[in-house]
């Protein structure tokens, strides 16, 4: 809303996040330029001043072109770049860029780990390090276990900066761990603030993108050069001390085999333009589920534990508590507090049984041993290695990649528990799936025992969601759910009680974890008037997440209170402070600012961490602490302390001219001009020496399935992506049988796999049937008329859909050749009021090497009249 220019790319914001789009429209009414970069002309494009069409999956080339433009025409925000980014930092001499190695970086070699992990190659990242601090021991491939899933680029690499900092000094083995952390401290790397040294990050970036010219952008993406230049002109005109540009993205960026790199490209561009940490700037991730952020923070994700701490892993030095802390603690930056966070987490798991003597129960905690994410687990299910599955409010029979394989894998399970509001495709796979209909599976032969538990809905239970801007909001129970519908919390708490009862008497070492698991969520008093007297108390769960003093149970008020000696119990350090005292649950707080107030609404719910609304907001002031401009004033130094419209994301009394303390750990190791407090060097990263396994800089690779040869490099696709080569997961590229680009997307009127929309008459009627969007040019070539049934085929399968022939789709000229794009919204399945074929039957199991995000947006296909 404070932006002067808003670029929406990789997102169909008006359709998928209409209410967030209101702020875009308000900015537009106030004069902002709105740009939409997208393969299709969508409802977002309809509102934009500029619609730049491009081929699905070529966004790195587009953004790289913008970076090239910004550097080439010296449009970057010099003062910001020099002080707040690592542009001046020097990288090792032996680093080799893609320009030198025809599309790959130095350190590439073959992958020799478990094939289930899917890697096609891996990097040794040693050469990517800064000139000093370059221990470079972290092996590529581990990235999939350490890389986080978060789509928030502001956090990109935050956690990951840890590996190389690990020192060899002998540490003490128990709390307090400060000494150990201090011993790991390294001196900061050398910098050249003139940005002239060829080894400095700025020069590396400049060389890396030197061939991403407007002409090349047009060749690769199909976006006409004049349109691209209009975009470049708009964002550079609107990025300076007076003005800011914002980027908004969603899964159009993440769901690629280079998804995290794509976000990284944008982060680089925004750092160069000085648009991070400033009002109206930044990069907004638009996420698709109510608490997709919360379920990443409080991770029902295999690779991380609470608050973005990496899961315990046999692939890293994690054998003992001290090993873990040594590996995962960053001595400089806020992450120096990792021991406090982690020990408090262990206390939340095992309570009084977690003692100094037993390393707080560290030995009971399970470890990961590879990639246990959805893609490889699907393969494992198919191979019979997984026996039981809980599918809780998720519908992989429609929503997962290569859904045919997914459903066949379900049939291999011994048992499946589904919890949802309706009979989902996943719950009904054994009776109504296409595989049963066509005889590939026989119901009588499917040995899976299936349970379908009916769920309570949002108005029928207490609980909280964390939105895409980290705002944690409580929803109150308004009524009992009907019949045997129960809250999800009820299900898991009562399942846990049964299991704990079973293991209560066990003396086996393997059962000690579950035996000692703290499981005290029963309500003190049943809710008056409710039919469900044994409903757990959601606030007790939140209290455990927030944390309390181990001795007397007093609620903690901030992460600063956390200790590494077991005296504090706190599941999630980032949520600490959300529930500072009994009866004061800040997620329930509902006090908005008055219309004349600062409009940061600090009284409305709670934003982690510490109720802060904009991260890294120190960057909204100049190095000397004054606002960059009156117009873009947000957080500033008033001579004594940091103040402003938001909670400053910086030590409150650390002066702008405070120097970094060479021997200190934590934030004292940063200077008063280092805004990025979660980074080891306090800088925004234009070059990622660690944290990414597929390169320190983003590079344009073609999607795994592409109709064209990569015009930029000899290397066609990411050399380290994840792929599972199977007969039921065949990949085709530059294959004349599949000449068109296939992209999938969502519509305003439906929600994801449709469970929450296709069963609702009000929504079902709005988009009742699956359709395929085709340009008149492509439809004409195949003799297809509007509403004709069309067969769309990929190497994984074929589906039929009704044609929606529209000029909103347009053929593109790619490297001298006409490429058609085919669009399919993927909300339909074989259950519900309105049904349709499952679009994910067409998609493939391929993933990114950092976080195993699948490719969802760019495949190849053929179409014909059915």
């Amino acid at each position, binding site marked *: 809303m404070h932006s002067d220019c808003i670029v929406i790319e990789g997102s169909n914001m*008006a*359709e998928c996040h*209409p*209410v967030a*789009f*209101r702020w875009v*429209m*308000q900015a*537009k*009414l106030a004069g902002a330029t709105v740009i939409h970069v997208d393969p299709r*002309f969508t*409802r*977002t*494009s*309809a*509102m934009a001043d500029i*619609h730049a*069409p491009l081929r699905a999956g070529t966004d790195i080339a587009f953004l790289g072109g913008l970076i090239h433009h910004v550097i080439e025409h010296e449009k970057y925000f010099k003062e910001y770049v020099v002080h707040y980014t690592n542009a001046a930092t020097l990288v090792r001499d032996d680093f080799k860029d893609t320009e030198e190695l025809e599309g790959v970086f130095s350190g590439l070699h073959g992958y020799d780990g478990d094939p289930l992990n899917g890697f096609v190659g891996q990097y040794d990242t040693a050469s990517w390090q800064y000139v000093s601090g370059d221990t470079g021991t972290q092996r590529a491939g581990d990235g999939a276990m350490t890389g986080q899933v978060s789509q928030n680029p502001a956090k990109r690499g935050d956690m990951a900066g840890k590996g190389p900092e690990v020192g060899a000094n002998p540490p003490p083995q128990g709390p307090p761990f400060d000494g150990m952390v201090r011993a790991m401290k390294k001196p900061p790397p050398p910098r050249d603030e003139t940005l002239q040294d060829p080894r400095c990050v700025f020069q590396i970036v400049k060389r890396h993108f030197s061939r991403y010219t407007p002409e090349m952008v047009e060749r690769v993406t199909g976006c006409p050069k004049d349109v691209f230049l209009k975009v470049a002109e708009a964002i550079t005109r609107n990025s300076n001390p007076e003005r800011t540009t914002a980027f908004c993205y969603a899964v159009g960026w993440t769901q690629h085999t280079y998804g995290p790199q794509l976000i990284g490209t944008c982060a680089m561009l925004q750092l160069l333009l000085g648009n991070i940490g400033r009002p109206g700037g930044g990069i907004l991730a638009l996420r698709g589920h109510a608490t997709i952020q919360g379920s990443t923070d409080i991770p029902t994700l295999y690779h991380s534990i609470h608050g973005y701490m990496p899961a315990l892993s046999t692939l890293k030095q994690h054998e003992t508590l001290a090993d873990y802390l040594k590996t995962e603690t960053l001595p400089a930056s806020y992450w120096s507090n990792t021991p406090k966070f982690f020990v408090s987490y262990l206390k939340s798991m095992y309570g009084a049984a977690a003692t100094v003597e037993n390393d707080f129960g560290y030995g009971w905690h399970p470890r990961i041993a590879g990639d246990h994410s959805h893609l490889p687990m699907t393969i494992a299910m198919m191979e019979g290695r997984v026996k039981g599955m809980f599918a809780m409010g998720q519908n992989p029979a429609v929503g997962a990649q290569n859904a045919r394989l997914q459903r066949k894998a379900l049939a291999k399970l011994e048992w499946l528990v589904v919890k949802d509001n309706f009979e989902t495709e996943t719950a009904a796979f054994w009776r109504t799936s296409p595989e049963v209909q066509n005889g590939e599976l026989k119901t009588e032969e499917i040995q899976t025992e299936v349970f379908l538990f009916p769920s309570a809905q949002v108005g029928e239970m207490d609980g909280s969601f964390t939105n895409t801007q980290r705002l944690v909001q409580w929803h109150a129970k308004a009524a009992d759910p009907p019949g045997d519908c129960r809250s999800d919390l009820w299900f898991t708490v009562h399942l846990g009680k049964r299991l704990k009862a079973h293991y209560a008497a066990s003396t086996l070492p393997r059962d000690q974890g579950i035996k000692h698991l703290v499981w005290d969520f029963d309500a003190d008093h049943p809710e008056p008037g409710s039919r469900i007297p044994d409903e757990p108390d959601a606030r007790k769960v939140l209290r455990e997440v927030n944390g309390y003093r181990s001795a007397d149970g007093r609620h903690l008020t901030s992460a600063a209170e956390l200790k590494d000696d077991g005296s504090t119990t706190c599941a999630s350090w980032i949520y600490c402070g959300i529930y500072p005292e009994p009866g004061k649950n800040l997620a329930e707080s509902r006090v908005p600012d008055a219309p004349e107030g600062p409009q940061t609404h600090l009284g409305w719910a709670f934003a982690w961490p510490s109720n802060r609304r904009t991260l890294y907001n120190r960057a909204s002031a100049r190095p000397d602490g004054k606002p960059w401009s009156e117009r873009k004033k947000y957080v500033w130094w008033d001579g004594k302390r940091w103040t402003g419209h938001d909670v400053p994301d910086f030590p409150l009394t650390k002066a702008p001219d405070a120097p970094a303390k060479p021997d200190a750990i934590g934030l004292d190791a940063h200077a008063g001009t280092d805004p990025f407090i979660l980074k080891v060097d306090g800088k925004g990263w234009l070059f990622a020496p660690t944290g990414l396994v597929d390169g320190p800089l983003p590079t344009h690779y073609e999607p795994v399935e592409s109709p064209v040869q990569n015009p930029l490099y000899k290397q066609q696709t990411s050399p380290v992506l994840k792929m599972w080569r199977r007969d039921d997961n065949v990949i085709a590229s530059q294959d004349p049988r599949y000449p068109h680009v296939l992209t999938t997307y969502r*519509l*305003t*009127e439906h929600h994801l796999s449709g469970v929450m929309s296709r069963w*609702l*008459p*009000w*929504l*079902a*009627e*709005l*988009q*009742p*049937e699956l*359709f395929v969007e085709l340009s008149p040019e492509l439809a004409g070539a195949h003799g297809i008329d*509007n*509403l004709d049934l069309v067969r769309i085929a990929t190497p994984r399968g074929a589906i039929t859909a*009704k044609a*929606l022939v*529209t*000029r*909103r789709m*347009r053929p593109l000229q790619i490297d001298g050749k006409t490429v058609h794009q085919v669009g399919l919204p993927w909300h339909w399945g074989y259950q519900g*009021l*309105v049904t349709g074929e499952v679009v994910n039957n067409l998609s493939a199991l391929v993933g990114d090497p950092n976080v195993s995000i699948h490719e969802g947006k760019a495949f190849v296909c053929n179409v014909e009249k059915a």
Partner: protein
Amino acid sequence: MAEPMGFFTDTTVCIGCKACEVACKSWNQISSTNGGQNVLSGDSYDNTRKLDGEHWRHVKFIEQFSEDRVSESRWLMMSDVCKHCVQAGCLEVCPTGAIIRTEFDTVVIQQDACIGCRACLPACPFGVIDINPVTHTAQKCTLCYDRMQVGMTPACAQACPTASIQFGPLVQLRKKAEDRVAQLHSQGKEEAYIYGDEAILGGLNSFYLLVDNPEVYGLPVAPKLPSRNLWRSSFAAAFGAAVLGLWGLVSLRTRKRGAKAEGPSSGDGGGDGGKKGAAP
């Protein structure tokens, strides 16, 4: 009487999300086409097709793309609704008094009075009204009469994410609309104009900012009241009645005279027989 209230729908900021359609249904508890089991229309993203008894709000989609997608590329969207005309055709023809003008100058069909005669359906110049298949009465937007009475915003306007639908006192809305048109004109969008000023049926209490001809949005250029035909049509009918009546009278008289003058002829021989038969 309370202040006249209405809607100002700025189609230039409509994102076609259809929140208005659903919010309307949710508040007013309206059923869906065939219980939700609708069919794809093939007309852009519009599958509810029109305003009717189950759709009191309806979003239209108009794709305007030239072959090169450069000289013309627009996707117009518009949330349509009852216009709450100052001179309302439906209100005129309703034979039961079920349709009333409220204290907010809006037009409401009282559901407990409507008999489902459907006279108002063809009377509306905008085709807004239709029978609801559940209640079997004529239905259309009430401008959330019940919500207005307690000071709440109508459901659609409250839900609208981009303030394309604005609700308020008409005086303020007309001012806002003028300002918005002026802003668009100053940005070089000369085609923007207001549809529904006083020239149309005395003013539409729900009016629109459009950027193309009304027909493009499915709106009549010069909507009229049905009663314009009342007198002339009645006179024509009366004229016909008079002509035929007079003709009957005259021909009866001439027949009598003719019959007397001609006397019994062979041709009327049968007639005589008839006369005899009819004699009491």
